[in-house]
């Protein structure tokens, strides 16, 4: 337990060790710790920012969806309106066409009737004449009475 030069030797090695620790051990390790701390903090901040952005995007998507829905229902309403318009138009034109066809048919019928009547009239006249001829054959000359027959036929 003698105090001797060992004291100085220990003091010197202590100084050297402290110097070495300070220069080559503490600084790099502390630097790495500090850097990692910063990186983690940055990462957390980035994560938070990302979350915020995601929230914003979600909100934006919701808005877009809402707008799209409104637009879709607008389009649907328009289409419905247009469809009923088309149906109405079709109805109108069909009615017109029908009426036109009806009118045409009526006039054709009338013509037919007229023609039949003319025909009938001629037939009746012939029949009447033939009847009269039969009655009058004995008494009347066909030639002599032709004028009267024609006149009759016209009057029918």
């Amino acid at each position, binding site marked *: 337990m003698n105090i001797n030069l060992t004291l100085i030797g220990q*003091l010197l*090695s202590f100084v050297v060790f402290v110097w070495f620790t300070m220069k080559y051990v503490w600084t790099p*390790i502390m630097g790495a710790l500090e850097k990692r701390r910063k990186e983690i903090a940055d990462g957390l901040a980035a994560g938070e920012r990302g979350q915020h952005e995601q929230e914003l995007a979600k909100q934006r998507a919701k808005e877009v969806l809402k707008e799209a829905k409104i637009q879709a229902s607008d389009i649907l309403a328009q289409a419905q309106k247009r469809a009923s318009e088309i149906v109405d138009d079709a109805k109108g034109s069909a009615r017109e066409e029908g009426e036109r066809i009806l009118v045409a048919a009526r006039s054709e019928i009338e013509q037919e009737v007229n023609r039949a009547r003319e025909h009938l009239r001629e037939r009746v006249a012939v029949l009447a004449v033939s009847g009269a001829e039969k009655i009058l054959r004995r008494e009347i000359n066909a030639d002599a009475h032709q004028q009267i027959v024609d006149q009759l036929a016209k009057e029918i």
Partner: protein
Amino acid sequence: MAGDTLTSSGYIKHHLTNLTFGKLPGGTYCEGEQVVTQDTWTVAHCADAAKEMGFNAIHLDTMFWSIVLGVIFLYLFKKAADSVTTGVPGGLQNFAEWIVEFIDQSVRGSFSARNDLVAPLSLTIFIWIFLMNLMDLVPVDFIPEISKLLGIHFMKVVPSTDPNATFGMAIGVFLLVLYYSIKIKGVGGFLGELTLQPFSSKNLLVNVLFIPVNFVLEFVSLIAKPVSLALRLFGNMYAGEMIFILIAIMYSAGIGMGIFGGALQLGWAIFHILIITLQAFIFMTLTIVYLDMAHHEH
């Protein structure tokens, strides 16, 4: 183990003698024999011879083990520091970071000024002292018996049981305390702290009269810092070492005592794990506190 030719007191004395190298004065006696006739540079042959060498001698074992342990510490931490990454740390880096964070927390907790030296200083003190104390857990005869086979007759393996080692560190810390006291407060501020408190008066004459009283009080408390720092560590380690040696003596007293001694040694070693860590931590914490006091007026 105590040899058959050794007495218990001889065994203890042998264990407490450092491997000392120095200039041995001629005519020194070891166990009744004159070992040298002239002044010789040599390794001391016995405890008395080591004492005769005086201040101009060096404890080779203390120097060797403390430097080896310091180099182991620096090698491990340098390795960790070289391969340090900010990504996922490996095992060694994890360990080094854990220690560094722990030291950093301790320094932040008790040191309020800004000084880049204090934290690495604390790390060195803590690990170095811990490793030196750890040598205490190596069975007391293990390394000395090996070195005896190598022809070295004295080997004290726990550097912190050598007051030279503890005082060396404490003086280093004390010099830093003085340096920072003067650097931060100036010579006047430092001397004022030594002489103008704790007693002071508004009356100038009374104040002057107080100066010697204050100086005695403050000087004692200033000197007490390194002395208590060194002696606390030395005392704890020396006492622990002594108990290990005493337990080891029990092995030579028959099988019953040997088994009892083995149980005691195990118990004391487990308890000693706490002491060696605690002493390293106390030395470090007090260093931080003293340096903090040096940075602040009070």
